[in-house]
């Protein structure tokens, strides 16, 4: 992050501390904002209010145990975080994951992405002052959460992906319920447009706001919809496919605008893509084991292992250094939100306070993932 000396406070500068307790920061993010009237001159994000030292903690946990903690990083795409860890362990131990497990994983990950984007949509509305979208977003999200509860036993921090596959087989009702909710969502997603996307006030609020150029997006290491809104192709599912994404037909959504509106459109289009992926898989779940046979105690060979996945917010990288023992020597997560947050001062410069809220909501920050 930028250090305090980077910006010299001038005489008469109006400095406002937004956060750590603030309705729009989606958690405990602290933004120090220099204002000129309503216009933002400079922003300094201060992070670390919810640092739980997940990386350090994982060093004392076994390779089965460290996965559950990652649900608490980006809790809105908990499945995908768990999947990343499981993939890294599998890669290191060269475990062959059964086909059925792979399909279940992709299904769960895409459902998770859908719920995450739904919540994001609701929060975007909420941040811009429209309260109703929030409740509309929760309608389908709630059904999917219940579905998760059926199969995984939890709604948010599922801990369902384990090295070698998934923890339990699908619930017998899973397929029927998924089909129902997807059919329902395909009808109801038009309400999203009616309520927010087509609304003239909303469009005015997001169009041309928070511009992030392609170069800046690359230099800040942005990923996910934030970077794709600036015209960068960075979908890990396409570029470095894992768990069978290579066999699926879906588009990488790229918008050239670079503003909040582009990022908004990317996410909305991604929901459609996720639904199409689910459509392709839901009737074609292969029979077989849901978990590969693994030893009770996992031991990674000596070495360094890296695996990246595409979470709902961008690229999550898991880096494990192993000394050959049962616990990792060092774990490092490359979290998408941290890099995306670092682009915020650039995006918000010259905008109004109201725009700052819009920008933050279209980056879709999850603060526990920034701090870890």
């Amino acid at each position, binding site marked *: 992050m930028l250090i305090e000396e980077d910006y010299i406070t001038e005489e008469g500068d109006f400095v406002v501390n937004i956060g750590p307790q603030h309705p729009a920061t989606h958690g405990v993010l602290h933004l120090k904002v220099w204002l000129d009237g309503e216009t933002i001159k400079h922003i300094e994000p201060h992070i670390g209010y919810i640092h739980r030292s997940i990386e350090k903690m994982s060093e004392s946990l076994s390779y089965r145990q460290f996965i559950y903690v990652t649900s608490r990083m980006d809790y809105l795409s908990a499945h995908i975080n768990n999947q990343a860890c499981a993939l890294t362990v599998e890669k290191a131990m060269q475990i062959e994951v059964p086909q059925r497990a792979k399909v279940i994983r992709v299904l769960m990950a895409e459902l998770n992405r859908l719920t995450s984007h739904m919540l994001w949509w609701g929060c975007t509305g909420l941040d811009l002052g429209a309260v109703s979208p*929030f409740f509309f977003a929760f309608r389908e999200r709630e059904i999917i959460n219940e579905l998760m509860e059926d199969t995984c036993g939890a709604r948010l921090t599922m801990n369902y992906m384990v090295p070698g596959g998934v923890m339990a087989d699908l619930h017998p009702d899973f397929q029927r319920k998924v089909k129902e909710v997807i059919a329902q969502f395909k009808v109801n997603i038009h309400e999203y447009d009616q309520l927010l996307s087509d609304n003239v006030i909303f469009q005015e609020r997001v169009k041309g706001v928070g511009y992030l150029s392609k170069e800046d997006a690359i230099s800040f290491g942005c990923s996910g919809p934030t970077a794709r809104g600036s015209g960068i192709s960075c979908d890990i599912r396409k570029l470095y496919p894992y768990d069978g994404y290579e066999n699926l037909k879906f588009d990488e959504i790229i918008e050239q605008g670079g503003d909040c509106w582009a990022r908004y459109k990317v996410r909305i289009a991604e929901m459609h893509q996720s639904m199409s992926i689910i459509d392709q898989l839901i009737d074609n779940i292969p029979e077989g084991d849901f978990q590969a046979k693994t030893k009770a105690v996992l031991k990674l060979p000596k070495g360094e292992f890296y695996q990246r996945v595409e979470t709902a917010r961008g690229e999550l990288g898991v880096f494990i250094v192993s000394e050959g023992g049962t616990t990792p020597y060092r774990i490092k997560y490359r979290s998408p939100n941290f890099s995306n947050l670092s682009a915020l001062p650039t995006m918000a410069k010259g905008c109004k306070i109201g725009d700052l*809220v819009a920008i933050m909501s279209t980056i879709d920050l999850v603060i526990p993932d920034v701090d870890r």
Partner: protein
Amino acid sequence: MTLLYSLSGLSYHIQSWLTRLLGNTMAVLVSEMVIVGLCLIGFLVLLSFTLGYMERRVAAFMQLRLGPNRVGPKGTLQIIADTIKLLFKEGLTPTNADKFMFNLAPYIMIITTMLVTAPLAFARNFQIWDLNIGVFYVSAVSSISVIGILMAGWSSNNKYSLLGAMRSGAQIVSYELSIGLSLISIVILTGSLRISDIVMSQQNGWWIFKGHLPALIAFVIFIVASTAEINRAPFDLAEAEQELTAGFHTEYAGMKFAMFLLSEYVNLFIVSALAATLFLGGWMPFHIGSWSGFNHVMDFIPSSLWFMGKTFFVIFIIMWFRWTFPRLRVDQLLNLEWKYLLPISMLNVLLMTLVALLGWHG
């Protein structure tokens, strides 16, 4: 019979009773003032309870929820429970606040809103003060409330409050113009600023029907601009929860906060009542040309019910706005006023003058 039906009869009886009792005109006047004041306070508190409950329910139904449904039958007592909660809260004053101003601001808000209720015609011949410049009085006095907001924002010694207050200042000053112009366009038709005259002039049809297109445009502009004037979403920039936490009343708690809330609801009522009076005929029943049977049935409904019904209809529309739209940004808010509402309402006044000159408003 008259007593049952008309509030004016009731007020007349009270007056004659007081005159007999006290004899002295001055004493009658004073005691009447006290009675009116107490009634008004009671009415406004009751009103804001109703509006608070209505707002929660309307919001809930629009958002696929149920809203308050635990305290009392169908949750009607929820708002009373909340009031009790607010009563028991500590009325905190920040250390570095300008204490006098800080404590004065909520009273200014309440006083102005109560002042504005004076010329409103609640029913046939039932008005607190039927002064001859009624409409002008309302628009003049209601703009004092911005002083209350500025005071609250400035004296709180909080940057969020200050920003909220400044926004609200800019907002109310500019939206006052369109409100004024849309009021004027009705005054052109009536030729009088007196509220009772305006209501009487709608005996054979409400202005929104009689005034043709210009009246309709004026009505829409009035609703939009007054939503902005009373700081409600989508123009609630002075509060703007997601940007400024609570804007100008961030630092207020307990009863002082309740006063802001009260004045917000009363303001909502006032602008809706004004819209109902000017455009929808106030307490005038709905009449259709020569259907005397129908008109007679309509006359049978008490005038106070007509007035309240129309007012709550307008209130519902304003609530509907709030629970549907995102908030505007501060520069867009001013754009909307100066680039769209103001030119259109100016043009509209011209059109209205034309209508009045040609005598189309029959």
